[in-house]
């Protein structure tokens, strides 16, 4: 019989090895899935994990890695702070949309002025938009004790409707020949978020993501607020004993995660996406939840997980194109990654024992 035995202290080795093992198991299980779909599993795995970095057309794909990873990391860092404290902001997608709308609206209001201040103002507006949207579930929770998982998630759908309305109404390009969507902010130099180093995919959003990783690392390991966040997640009663104010912490964590998601939206709409359209959002806010957990809610882990997740995105698209693997299978593949990661997580806190119960 196999049983689990709780470790006295969580194992450091296993907390490092678990993600690697999870990736390996995902490859194996995903390979079976691809084989069942009648595709060559080795080819599919190679397309997903190998070709985007080192394959024939890697020069085209490599910049995409940072373009995709940037917003994922930025959002996931914000989410991880709340998750650490047991505050479950599931609505980053909505905050991402609202950040993009707020920021784009500021930029479009200045059109066609050419002032250096415009882009910084847009960045601030993006952060404010995401933060305000996150304040709704935060205040509902602190005032009425509603469940932030539900409210933040429902607000995503509202944000999506607002996005549609904006793309077809207020923010619609007056010179767009009736097509939905705003002016292209990337083509308007005062508001554009260009590639900073050609061929790398590095834009301001990626820079912001790296800064967020470093700041979160310092916050969690060196600052008393980071300690309070960790303490609250682990033991809410001990946190109150240590003078943590739970409601204030909810507001701070929701605000930080909303603000970072808003920033990600702003950098996306001014750079890679270029304009507000009704299909502007592509699910970064949800995928970032996976990234946060894949990275074990640790800033460095999230950096790596964001890159890995971006890789599966790009590789997944390649596999879709070249092997005509259905998009749903790629999503299932990404889902497996999270599943195996959480399953492997058990090994950090428990050890597997074979044989009969000793107690």
């Amino acid at each position, binding site marked *: 019989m196999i049983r689990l035995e709780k470790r006295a202290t969580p194992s450091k080795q296993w907390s490092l090895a678990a993600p690697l093992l999870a990736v390996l198991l995902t490859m194996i299980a995903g390979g079976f899935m691809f084989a069942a779909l009648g595709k060559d599993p080795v080819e599919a795995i190679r397309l997903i994990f190998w070709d985007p970095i080192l394959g024939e057309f890697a020069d085209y794909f490599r910049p995409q890695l940072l373009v995709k990873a940037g917003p994922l990391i930025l959002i996931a860092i914000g989410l991880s702070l709340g998750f650490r404290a047991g505050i479950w902001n599931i609505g980053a997608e909505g905050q991402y949309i609202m950040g993009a709308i707020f920021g784009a609206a500021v930029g479009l209001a200045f059109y066609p002025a050419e002032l250096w201040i415009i882009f910084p103002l847009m960045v601030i507006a993006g952060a404010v938009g995401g933060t305000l949207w996150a304040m709704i579930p935060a205040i509902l929770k602190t005032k009425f004790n509603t469940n932030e998982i539900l409210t933040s998630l429902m607000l995503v759908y509202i944000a999506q409707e607002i996005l549609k309305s904006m793309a077809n109404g207020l923010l619609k390009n007056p010179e767009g020949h009736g097509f939905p969507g705003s002016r292209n902010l990337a083509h308007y130099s005062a508001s554009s978020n260009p590639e900073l180093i050609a061929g790398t995919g590095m834009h301001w959003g990626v820079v912001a993501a790296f800064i967020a990783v470093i700041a979160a690392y310092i916050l969690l390991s060196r600052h008393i607020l980071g300690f309070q966040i960790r303490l609250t997640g*682990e033991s809410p009663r*001990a946190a109150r004993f240590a*003078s943590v104010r739970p409601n204030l912490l909810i507001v701070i964590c929701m605000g930080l995660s909303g603000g970072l998601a808003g920033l990600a939206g702003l950098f996306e709409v001014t750079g890679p996406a270029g304009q507000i359209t009704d299909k502007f959002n592509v699910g970064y806010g949800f995928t970032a939840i996976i990234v946060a957990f894949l990275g074990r809610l640790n800033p460095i882990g999230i950096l790596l997980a964001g890159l890995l997740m971006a890789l599966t995105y790009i590789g997944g698209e390649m596999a879709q194109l070249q092997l005509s693997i259905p998009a749903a299978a790629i999503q299932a593949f990404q889902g497996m990654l999270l599943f195996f990661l959480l399953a492997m997580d058990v090994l950090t806190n428990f050890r597997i024992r074979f044989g009969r119960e000793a107690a």
Partner: protein
Amino acid sequence: MSDTGEAPVLLHLDGLTKAYPGVVANDSVSFDIREGEVHALLGENGAGKSTLVKMIYGLVKPDSGTMTLRGQRFEPSEPRAARADGIAMVFQHFSLFDALNVAENIALGMEKPPKMGDLAAKIKEVSEEYGLPLDPHATVGNLSAGERQRVEIIRCLLQDPKLLIMDEPTSVLTPQEVEILFETLRQLSREGTAILYISHKLEEIRSLCDEATVLRLGKVVGSCTPREKSARELAEMMVGEVLHVPERAAKDAGEVVLSVSDLSVDSPNPFGTSLKNVSLEVRAGEILGIGGVAGNGQDELLAAISGEAKTDQGAVTVHGKAVGNLSPNERRKLAILAAPEERLGHAAAPDMSLIENALLTGAVRKDLTKSGFVNWGASREFAREIIKKFDVRTPGSTNAARSLSGGNLQKFVVGREVLQDPDVLVVNQPTWGVDASAAASIRQSLLDLAERGAAIIVISQDLDELMEISDRFAALNEGSLSDARPAVGLTVDEIGLMMGGAHGMEVAHSHPDEHHEGATS
């Protein structure tokens, strides 16, 4: 009872051994329990008492050794088998559903429960026969701890047991309630039911038990007739060394440091107890002992003084300054410290290291942060200082709090507050689950702290402990605090009455015919 020496052996234990990884819980334990005998199993926390009774009750299988019940080989594979052979057990922690009534709770534990009406009648009959009146239709959530224990006992008695195991039954009872329970146990014993009575309370064992087996570190280290030994001799058998009794110097009472006046707090927890008009004063250099059965407002009182629960500003004052609206850290700045009862999850975070747990309450007074950034070096130093001065046994300060034994973590938690040099210290259950020598050193540290002029409140369910260290004694009963009285000269009866007497349960043995309904009101 007097002739138990002649009574036949009911249960014979021979060489029972049970090892867990890293510790031998029972090492070749052998003794006999005779029919109708009240047999004490005496030992410190961690001596192996619980493991032993779990083997008898079929919860744990011995690695080796045998049990013989009335001459038959006895190897219960599960509690159901043990119950079928006439073994019943009342656990220290009750397994009752608050929302169900007494009869429903009892029916839940039965293999084939009879009709509710019949069962209720049976409960009433048995409970009155044994002097433990119970209303079968009372909702368990409304019962006092003593009455809940009655439910557990009646549940056992309905099985007509040959051996009744009782694990620390008096920890939730007032002295009056204890007397009622003992009367019942003596009656059972007269009728031929053997009782295995687990405790570390020596006076109780001396007054109740016919035989005692003493366990230490998993081994039987002696057996005796408790009535023929003094409590001190029993304690020394149990601990294996000469006990060091904390010393206290006579002193003059200083000025009033902590004053609580007319404090009423609603408990945030639906099964908690709200405080009702609590008033108290503690002077510099004084220890106020607060007794009472668990769940009568102890946690709430600690929270109101530590700052976890905010109150009217003037309800709590320290050195004349109103602090009722201050947060825990603002109070720590004013040298008001607390050590809660729940070690893991309240006083300390289980998965965090001892360094982080030192920071948890030490940040303010030990100056462990600078403009919001943590000085981990200083935190580590503080953790090491606690470990060293309070003899906390751990491989190092980076170990997680939950890897420490209960006693060692308790030393850490109390040490952490004592070393922050408080003016006011509130400790809830300072020595719960701590072995005797560690308990003595914790008590000594509290006495030393008082001598340096701190005002201390010790909340405890251990009356012996309170009598040993308190200058004055008060008791919490359903959220109300009795007037504090000098501890010297208080009798057990007086203490019991301060704790709420028998919570309306006294009818039991004195007037068995009288009818009795739900007791707490």
